[in-house]
């Protein structure tokens, strides 16, 4: 699948096979919930974090986080934290009845071939999808070559995908093949809880990040640049050329607006610092996307996924796509028709669009598009997922 990336498994094939055999023989514990960090960013995805928050006080659930970075302070009592490669992690995985994988790298999140037999393996998505993005997987086998079928189905790990709407379900499936439609859980995205939850109820670290951004704005509005691509214009590292960026900064200055930039670098450090005069809101400084989105007043993007999540807050978004021929290759949705704000083709038009947006004139189809993309605008998404899992556990035990 184009747009995917392949990781080389560090596990020797003998160990791989041994795990596979053991996994089939090991009874699964529905009370053992394993949350897996993103193998590239080493962070616990926001969706998994939200789910963890939802069960943090549930003493009947054993909670384990697998990750490679330093142990994060998640504020959850009796939480095990292990490297995905060590033996403890392997044992947890063998027994885990519930495993939560980051959608962006669901097939590569753990180095073990965990199966879905008797186990719920959930792809947790952190937001809506406008783009296919990069989906990592361990060396995909050319199954067609061995089975003489064009589209043979490989062994499947994921058996549930969390989605926010019917359209979102279709987007999710396009990036979680070989998942099927009946594995879609249209519960809403747990990560969206962090958009809608009262500030005081947010986890401390996310609230602190929000407050820090907020403080740095000093009462001014924040125009957040959310680039998806680093196209040919990207001398500055964004979808704007350096002069365009300067021009935008000047526009902001004249209106007492802070221009902030958040590039999703998938865990890598940005290859250049934020340009002068632009507030650095990168994940390295503010790991929580939602903390930054909540602090922003409007967003200018080319076609970043997070712009859709931001629009759920009811605030204006503007898309600038200067090279439309390039965009559709990576896009799941039709930007022209399913973007909740104006889509402009020329940089010169951006200012009028932003002015209009600031004057509270939302795009005529803003609400219609939001309604199509997300069925839930509340902070109960995690609760719905947990409720469904509990019902599943109860049914299995009955």
């Amino acid at each position, binding site marked *: *699948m*184009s747009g995917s990336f392949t990781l080389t498994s560090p596990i020797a094939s003998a160990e791989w096979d041994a795990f596979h055999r053991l996994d089939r023989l090991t009874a699964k514990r529905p009370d053992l919930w394993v949350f897996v960090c993103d193998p590239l960013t080493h962070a616990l995805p926001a969706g998994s974090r939200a789910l963890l928050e939802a069960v943090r006080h549930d003493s009947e659930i054993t909670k384990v986080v697998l990750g490679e970075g330093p142990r994060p302070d998640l504020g959850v009592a009796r939480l095990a934290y292990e490297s995905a490669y060590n033996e403890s992690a392997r044992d947890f995985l063998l027994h885990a009845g519930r495993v939560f994988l980051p959608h962006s790298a669901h097939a590569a999140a753990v180095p073990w071939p965990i199966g879905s037999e008797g186990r719920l393996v959930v792809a947790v998505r952190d937001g809506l999808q406008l783009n*296919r993005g990069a989906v990592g997987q361990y060396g995909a086998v050319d199954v*067609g070559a061995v089975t*003489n*079928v*064009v*589209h*043979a*189905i490989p062994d499947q790990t994921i058996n549930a995908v969390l989605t926010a*709407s*019917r*359209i979102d*379900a*279709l*987007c999710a*499936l*396009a*990036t979680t*093949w*070989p998942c*099927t*439609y*009946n594995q879609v859980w249209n519960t809403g995205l747990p990560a969206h809880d962090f958009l809608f939850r009262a500030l005081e109820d947010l986890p401390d670290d996310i609230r602190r990040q929000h407050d820090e951004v907020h403080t740095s704005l000093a009462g001014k509005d924040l125009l957040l640049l959310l680039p998806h691509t680093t196209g040919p214009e990207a001398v500055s590292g964004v979808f704007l050329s350096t002069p365009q960026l300067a021009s935008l900064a000047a526009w902001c200055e004249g209106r007492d607006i802070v221009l902030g930039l958040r590039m999703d670098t998938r865990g890598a450090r940005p290859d250049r610092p934020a340009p002068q005069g632009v507030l650095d809101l990168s994940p390295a400084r503010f790991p929580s996307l939602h903390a930054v989105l909540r602090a922003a007043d409007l967003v200018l993007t080319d076609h970043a996924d997070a712009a859709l999540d931001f629009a759920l807050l009811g605030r204006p978004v503007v898309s600038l796509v200067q090279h439309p021929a390039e965009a*559709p290759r990576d*896009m*799941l*949705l*039709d930007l*022209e*028709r*399913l973007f909740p704000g104006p889509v402009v083709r020329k940089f010169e038009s951006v200012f009028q669009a932003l002015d209009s947006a600031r004057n509270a004139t939302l795009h005529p*189809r803003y609400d*219609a598009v939001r*309604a*199509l993309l997300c069925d839930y605008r509340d902070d109960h998404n995690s609760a719905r997922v947990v409720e469904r899992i509990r019902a599943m556990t109860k049914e299995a035990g009955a």
Partner: protein
Amino acid sequence: MTRPDLNEVVVRWHRAVSVWASLHEADAAEARQYLGRLLDGHLLDAPPPAGDLGDVDPDLLVECEVALVNASGAFDEDGYADANRHIPAIRERQVSAVEHFCSTGWEWLRNPRADFDMWWYWFEHLDPRRTQINPFVHYLLVGRHLGLATSASRQPERPDPPVFEEGITRRICLFAAYDVDGIVDDYVVHYLQELSRFADVYYLADGRMPEAELAKIADVTKGAWAIPHGRYDFGSFSTLAEELVGWDIIDQYDEMLLANDSCYLLRPLDEVFGTMDAVATDWWGLQGSKADFGERYGHHEPIPFAAAKGMHSERDDWYCYFRLHLSSYFLVFRKRVMDDPGFRRRLSTVASQEHKMLIVLKYEIGLSDYLLRAGFVCDTYIPDLYPFHPIYSNDYFKLLEQGFPLLKRNLINENSLRVPDLAQWKERVRPFSRDAPLDSFEANLRRVSADDRLRASLAVRTRPDGTVDHHRPLGRRKFRAADRTAPTFDHWWAFPVCADEHTLTGSERAVFEEVADDPSIKKIVLTRSRRIDLPGTNVVSAPITSPEGQHHLARSGQVFLKHGPLVDVLPWNLSTTTRNFINLSQGTPLRRFGRSLDSPDAATLERLHRNNAGNRAAVAAGPLDRLAMAAALYPVPYDAVWETGLPRHDLVLRPEDRLLPDMQDALRRLREEVAGRRLVLLVPGVRSAKAPPGLRFSDREAADLASWARRNDAVLGVRESISDRGRLFAQLLPHGALNLGVRRFADFEVLLRVADIMVSDCSPSLIDFTLTGRPIVSFAPPAETDSDSDSDDQLYNLDRMLPGPTCRTADQLLDALDRVLLPRDAAAEEEYLWRRSLFVPRIDDQAAWRVVQKVKSLYVTGP
């Protein structure tokens, strides 16, 4: 013991099954004892239960009946197994004889023992119109305790049968007809003209017909009707005798002829009637048949019919199919039979059957069997009984020599016995026909026959060495082997017709036309029941099941499909890696289908995977459609769905003067029928498997819709479809709606181009129609889906996305039709265009071109 009411027996039996089930779960021995008490005649001991027939799980019912029959010891297991050893499940011991009998055998009238005649018992002691209870179970529980007979004793022939030396002057003919196009064909007029010389003819067609068609036979019939009843020829005979003509009229005649339109009349009937009037008999036919008097059973020569009447084989005792009978295409009864209560009851209790064969078993063979056993004297015009089945075998030509006046259409177009050299049928029957309109017969053959079967029939020929070339296609295994070894050519493009409608229309047609004149591409049209001859360069057309079709298919590098390899190219399981199956889609889905449906059962899942996984690529109308197609066609991945647009849309958007001549002609025909009125096109949606059939408009609602059309200078047009299991819109046909079915207008796009409004139930056609910019109405009656308008079987929140109103009742539909007639303001127009663009972002007639480019790119890059 007095005979209990049948309904009461059924209710008690169903209750008893439930009791047995609960006992069986707890204690098998006690359950056996319970059945023993029932077999001892205690079913009727308890007070009669209240309520209806009571629902019982069909599997449970069979399980209990198997236990009951086994416990009775009254079932001849060895005899049944021996008599039915040709059935694979029995031969291979997949089921026991009792299990087979209790699950399906009894409904197919297979006898449980040699002295128990299923249909006779059923007819005499139960309700022959209903399938309420296994007659043998009834016998075990009730019948034997009442001393009910289990079969008819054979009576000696009655003395002094009537004879008419001077000829019969008072004869009535009840004529049963069916025409797939709802017309009275010329050959029928010709036949009826001749019959009217000898009888007062009453005609009933099973189906709808315009008055103008019935007017064609007004001069040769005393009465002619067209009424859909679905009970084949015996249903028409029954309706004529019971309702349309009546026995009081029939009583005025000396002889009653039952005939149907399954035959062509080759010669005048003077000789037939002249000969048979002088024969002393109670009833007669043209010839007799006996299924086990055939070459397969060692009978190669004819025997006198008189001797045949005395024949009895063991098979007769086990299955009525083998019994001697006269065929219903031409049966004549004289007064003694006409007055017989058993005969009249048999004609008055004809019920619709799930399979045509049951009509034959119950009514055709059943009637003959009754009359023969009752001692009514029988004779045939052809004096001998020929080996089975003489009118479909080479012996037919011997019958012709003896003056047989008819030609059965099925001999030519089915040719089930593979008679060679029927390609020359006209030359072969001409010497025996007197001025018969053979060309008219041929025209009828071409119009109503399944083209692939007709071609297969006519292809059987005698080789120069005298052996017969049956022209059979390879069997599944051999064809698969051939497919593995045959080379495939990139430039051989195969177009199998739609597996449902057998047409090459829509997207497949658009792609075909895109390359029709490209000599570098060999176009192979693989047909089924319809004859398809499309113009173009380097075009081949052959039935998909013919040897020629297989040869071409095995070598085709590209195959264009509507449903998927398994459905469109038969279950041959062809290689999917040595060729490209390109799925051209059935349209923009709005409802979930295929793999996007909720957890199908294992068998369906397996079939879906096998069907879907073979599609190298599929096409989609736009980004959203691409996502939906990837979900439904799983495991076809997202990357393999091409956002080319749907080629069928080209045929809606292309300027009319650039359309194909046949489509232009169809447009003209449709506009003539519409006659300047607004056309409201009613198209049934594809029903999901769980949708209940049989939704009905009330008479008032149907009349209101017709009235709305008249008030608004509109006409309703119904596109019936085999997927419309409820036939909701078909109800409107008697109210003046136009029948725009596929036999009349093969190309759906023609209807889209002419229609002013489309009403459909969430079908892809709604989206197709928005290409015209005209209004749509989604009409999904509540029984179809959940009460929530965003029902779970939809892929999208349609109320937020469809560019037209959605409604669920007939009154809402009328209101919606009123509203969509009003002109849209600018805001509404913009909203319409935006919603349409969600599904179809690109409005042009170049989708087929884009598909062709993508396919050609596979030449170079491969998968």
